[in-house]
Structures are given as structure tokens and as C-alpha cells.
């Protein structure tokens, strides 16, 4: 059963408190809770597994280093997702070269993935990389993290109206791209 948002928030706060109290195993709990989700956000933003791994590691390190300044009135997950998106955007800027649409296809799909899943990953990955990074972030948070418009606005620190505008425009672009590739 999926945990409720409030229960998840409370679990995060408890782990943060324990880590700050010197209990190192709390770090393991936070990594367990978020590494898969943050890695997938970075992977969809960057289209490259190695870069996604680097970003995930950097985000966790920065998060733990800054944990004492983290304001518990705000949601922990918004904070770490924001850092992941920002670090991914910074990585894209640092690349200094255009991301090719073939990047995602260079990622070997797990051997256990059914063919249709692998094909969907390939198509989605290529189409996502054709979006502007800011638009891609909205799509990734909506469709791969299942955030509401309001949560996306909170993470990206933009108005809800902008979230909707970017999402609708990006999805329209994806629709056209995916249809063209299917033909």
C-alpha cells in the first residue's frame, strides 16, 4: 500500500532528526526512500545513466551537508526533488554539447524488462530529450513522480499557471514527436 503524503513527510522528518542526532543509519533510511525516485528523475532529465548516477550522488551529499539548515516546515521531498532537477539542469549546461536523441538508446535495458517495456522506454526517452529542459522537468515530475500541478509548482518554484502551460505545451510536442516516430 502506498504511504500517505502526511505519513511520508513524518517519516522523512523522523529520519532527518535521527541523522542530525548522530544516528548514521538514518542516512541509509533516507537513501532507501529516495535513491530510486531521484535516480529516475535525473535519468529522464539527462538521458544518460552515468550522469544520472552522478547527479543522484551529488544531490544526496549536498542534502546531508545542508541538512542542518533544512527548514522542517517545508517538505523534505520537495527539497530533494528541487535539488535533483536543478543539478540535472546544471549538468545539461555543463555538457556544452547538444544532447543527442540517441543517448537513451545507449542505456542497456535490464535483461528482465519485457520487450514492450524496453520499447516504451526507448521511445519515451528519445522523445523527452527533444523537449526543452524546463519543459522536460515538468513532464518528468508529472508523469514519472505523479506530482500534482501544485507540487510541481512548489518543487520548481514557478506558478501553477506556468506548470500547466509548460505541461500542456510539452505534451503536445511529445504527442507529435511520438506519432511521427511511429509512422
Amino acid at each position, binding site marked *: 500500500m502506498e504511504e500517505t503524503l502526511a505519513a511520508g513527510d513524518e517519516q522523512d522528518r523522523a529520519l532527518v532528526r535521527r*541523522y*542530525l*542526532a*548522530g*544516528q*548514521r543509519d538514518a*542516512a*541509509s533510511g533516507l*537513501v*532507501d526512500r529516495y*535513491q*530510486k*525516485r531521484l*535516480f*529516475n528523475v535525473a*535519468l529522464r532529465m539527462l538521458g544518460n*545513466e552515468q550522469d544520472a*548516477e552522478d547527479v*543522484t*550522488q551529488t544531490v*544526496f*551529499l549536498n542534502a*546531508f*551537508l545542508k541538512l*542542518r539548515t533544512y527548514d522542517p516546515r517545508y517538505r523534505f521531498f520537495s527539497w530533494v526533488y528541487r535539488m535533483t532537477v536543478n543539478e540535472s539542469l546544471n549538468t545539461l549546461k555543463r555538457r556544452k554539447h547538444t544532447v543527442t536523441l540517441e543517448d537513451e538508446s545507449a*542505456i542497456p535495458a*535490464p535483461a528482465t524488462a519485457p520487450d*514492450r*517495456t524496453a520499447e*516504451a*522506454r526507448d*521511445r*519515451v*526517452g528519445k522523445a523527452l530529450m527533444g523537449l526543452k529542459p524546463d519543459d522536460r522537468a515538468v513532464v518528468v515530475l*508529472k*508523469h*514519472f513522480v505523479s506530482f*500534482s*500541478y501544485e507540487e510541481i509548482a512548489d518543487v520548481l518554484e514557478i506558478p501553477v499557471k506556468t506548470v*500547466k502551460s509548460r*505541461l*500542456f505545451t510539452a*505534451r*503536445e510536442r*511529445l*504527442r507529435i514527436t*511520438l*506519432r511521427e516516430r511511429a509512422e
Partner: protein
Amino acid sequence: MLNRDQIELIHREIDGTNTPEGHAAFRSLMVADPEARALEADLREVTRLFHQAGEREPPPHLKQAILDALPVPARAAPRTETGWLTPPAMVRWFVSQLRLVTART
């Protein structure tokens, strides 16, 4: 040709965020406009592909790499006023100095 409001209505329906009035307007639009039906089908296909793509497992070594690089929480090693004079602290200092000297030579 669909107008901006009609396109947004379809997007909101896909996201499940239409009000009851919006949902009713969406149903009417679906009945009346084949272009709207085509757009809705296309957008549902996009979201289906996202769902099918699913999540990837992070590399198995990632968690340990993160934990290995973490700083020790400050309260894990309570500092005393003479903490830097404790035997472990002095050993660490000597080792660091030795490394510096070795690196220079």
C-alpha cells in the same frame, strides 16, 4: 479547429483535474468533435507510454557509494573542549601531517 480552452479541457481530463462542470463540458466536446476525440486518444497514448516505460532500478552500488561519501554527523562524535587533544584526534593529526610531508617529498 480546437481552441485553446478546449485543448486545456482535454489535458485537464487526462490529468484528472477537471471540475464536475469541466468534465461535463469535456463529455460534450467528445461527442461533438472528432478532432477532440483524436487529440484525447493521442494524449492517452502518450501517458500510457510513460506508464509502460516505468521506473529503472538504480545501479546496485549507488547506495553504498552515497553512504561511503557521507560526512559523519557532528553529534555522532561529541566534542569536548579538549577534543582535539584526545588520543584519536592526535593520531589523526599526525597521520595527516605525515601524508602532507610524504606528498611533498
